[in-house]
């Protein structure tokens, strides 16, 4: 495997983006930041890959106008996944591994506020047996949280602890749209929203976009003092069917973690759009109490659809660049109730070092 590093990261997150669902206006300044971080122009980028959803944008081919943000004349080597940024990064990482290119810029965007997000996401379910019932994402997550409580795996206090820590950390994150910790008692005194979930247990509906820059070997060393080398990049999916899987588990997360080099991870950015999901992920990934979880505030502070997973990787990379950590984990999830999971381990040292 070639040594590939994350060498650039830019993000925008907001409660309501006053612009088009294709977010071209957001992407142009994001790319400018990536060029500034690397000193590159778009011609130095060997491969482009984006992540987005037509259903979120409310139109077919929403990614088509997004390529205008690149300025694709002359043409570029480009692809698109109907997935989160983290998986767009995976496709770009593959492309670099084939030796065909040495650099890539990946990006994703989504305007969740354009519709009623939890209803839009109902269209992700089995169209023959589930979607006609319109179960929404928050209710499904509520069932998952209840299953864990009933099984004695966690309680509402443990969930409130996750929320309190996230909202406290979010105070230092300029992109967080929900922030401000209080106390577990105060959080537990708030009204229940989708029993047993309270509002702060659920990620806020967030608009936004993000971009990551990847480079191999010396290309990475040229543009970054302390590149965040990708030591592991693995992902798996579980069956969707809510009736046949154990909602208190996430086997695909466990499997992704088992295939990754997690020894000595100091910081983990977990993509957990619901507080109890962080508890599941910590167990599945076997993260001990000494691992700092979500210093950015995580998805409970802001969760822009289709970029929030990749943002976890970007936030993890930032800890490596700054020297704050020498090994960090970025995790992304997709699908209802943690159906699909990706683990990316970043380190200050590559395998060649």
């Amino acid at each position: 495997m070639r040594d590939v590093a994350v060498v650039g990261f830019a993000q925008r997150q907001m409660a309501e983006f006053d612009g088009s669902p294709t977010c071209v206006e957001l992407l142009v300044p994001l790319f400018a930041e990536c060029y500034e971080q690397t000193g590159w122009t778009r011609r130095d980028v060997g491969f482009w890959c984006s992540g987005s959803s037509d259903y979120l944008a409310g139109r077919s081919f929403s990614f088509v106008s997004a390529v205008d943000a690149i300025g694709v004349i002359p043409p570029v080597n480009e692809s698109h996944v109907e997935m989160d940024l983290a998986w767009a990064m995976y496709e770009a990482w593959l492309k670099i591994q084939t030796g065909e290119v040495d650099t890539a810029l990946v990006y994703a965007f989504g305007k969740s506020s354009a519709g009623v997000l939890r209803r839009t996401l109902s269209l992700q379910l089995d169209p023959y047996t589930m979607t006609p019932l319109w179960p929404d994402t928050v209710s499904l997550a509520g069932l998952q949280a209840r299953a864990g409580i009933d099984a004695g795996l966690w309680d509402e206090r443990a969930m409130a602890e996750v929320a309190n820590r996230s909202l406290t950390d979010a105070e230092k994150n300029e992109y967080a749209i929900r922030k401000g910790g209080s106390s577990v008692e105060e959080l537990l005194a708030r009204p229940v929203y989708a029993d047993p979930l309270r509002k702060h247990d659920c990620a806020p509906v967030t608009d936004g976009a993000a971009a990551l820059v990847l480079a191999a070997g010396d290309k990475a060393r040229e543009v970054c003092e302390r590149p965040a080398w990708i030591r592991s990049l693995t992902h798996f999916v579980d069956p969707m069917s809510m009736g046949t899987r154990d909602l208190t588990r996430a086997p695909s997360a466990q499997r992704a973690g088992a295939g990754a080099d997690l020894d000595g991870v100091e910081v983990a950015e977990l993509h957990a759009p619901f507080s109890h999901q962080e508890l599941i992920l910590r167990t599945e990934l076997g993260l001990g109490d000494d691992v700092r979880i979500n210093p950015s505030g995580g998805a409970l502070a802001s969760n822009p659809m289709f970029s929030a997973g990749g943002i976890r990787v970007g936030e993890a990379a930032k800890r490596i660049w700054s020297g704050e950590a020498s090994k960090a984990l970025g995790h992304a999830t997709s699908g209802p109730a943690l159906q699909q999971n990706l683990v990316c381990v970043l380190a200050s040292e590559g395998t060649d070092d």
Partner: protein
Amino acid sequence: MAKQPAAVIGVGQTHHRAKREDVSMPGLLREAIDRALEDAQLTLEEIDAIVVGKAPDLFEGVMMPELFLADSIGAAGKPLLRVHTAGSVGGSTAIVAASLVQAGVHKKVLTVAYEKQSESNAMWALSVPIPFNMPVHAGAGGYFAPHVRSYIRRSEAPTHVGAIVAAKDRQNALKNPYAHLKNPDTTVESVLASQMLWDPIRYDETCPSSDGACALVIVSEDEAARSANPAWIHGTVMRSEATSAAERDQVNPQASRDAAAALWKQAGITSPIDEIDMAEIYVPFSWFEPMWLESLGFADANGGGWRLTESGATAMGGRLPVNCSGGVLSSNPIGASGMLRFGEAALQVRGAAGEHQVDGARKALGHAYGGGSQFFAMWVVGSEKPSS
């Protein structure tokens, strides 16, 4: 590190029809997957990773359908990727699947692309009003007709060349058991007598709307040893350009020319017309055959394309048979249409194309395009392992 060799050892497709009401989406995909696995003599359990491709989710009315399909297509417990690059998606998906092997990450990859248009309504899906955009309200034919008119004017093509392509592809489809349209009576004359839809595109010069799927099994060099006839991947390429820009040549887009140049270079091909034995080219409207022949470098860009078509060189038995399967003009499950081109090219160099086999085909082109002639995906496959 150099690219690892990769080969196609399994190709499967569904019977393509306007409405496959006999199967659900999972059933449709499994029909193609099971055939590809049988061809590859592998089971789903042996597959390392799965790559799904399809065109817009609004075509079926399901957001990210690969998530609910994960279990039925055998992806549970495996890595699953979902590609969407407009009409070129079937090709791009096969390329992403190939890159999993070429990168050395996996050894046995299954890829499947599909469209089940009868579940929703494609015209609705393509007609959602978009702020600040001129509505087309004319479907793809209305969008592409001006490009075709421009080609005819520039190349001084005789106006019956499109009908030659349509008649040829519909006759070829009769030799393909999976093809959607089976019209034995189609001739150049009957095409010219059909209804004009978007001048100069007549009804018989347009592709159908189909339900269908295509699946490929792509494996590493050591796994390819299990196959008597692997189709080795000699080159893959993707290129994209903007939808609209004043300097764009929509008839012969730069992204297409750049993609072809990069592809031929990768595959070590200096004279495509001499070195490629057959081509499966994405031709949703008949005139795109001569247009792409020029853009791909099979003929000069001053009318060489229509001259090649008119001479009969692109018919079965000609110098460069094109779309022996019947092509997109005979079966068009949009998301799968590109993968069908890639898969049919693989079948040809494996000598496994049945009645529509080109004798002795050793190198073939699979081609797909999408959007407003702006997204391109292509590959070259060969019966021999690439030398470098």
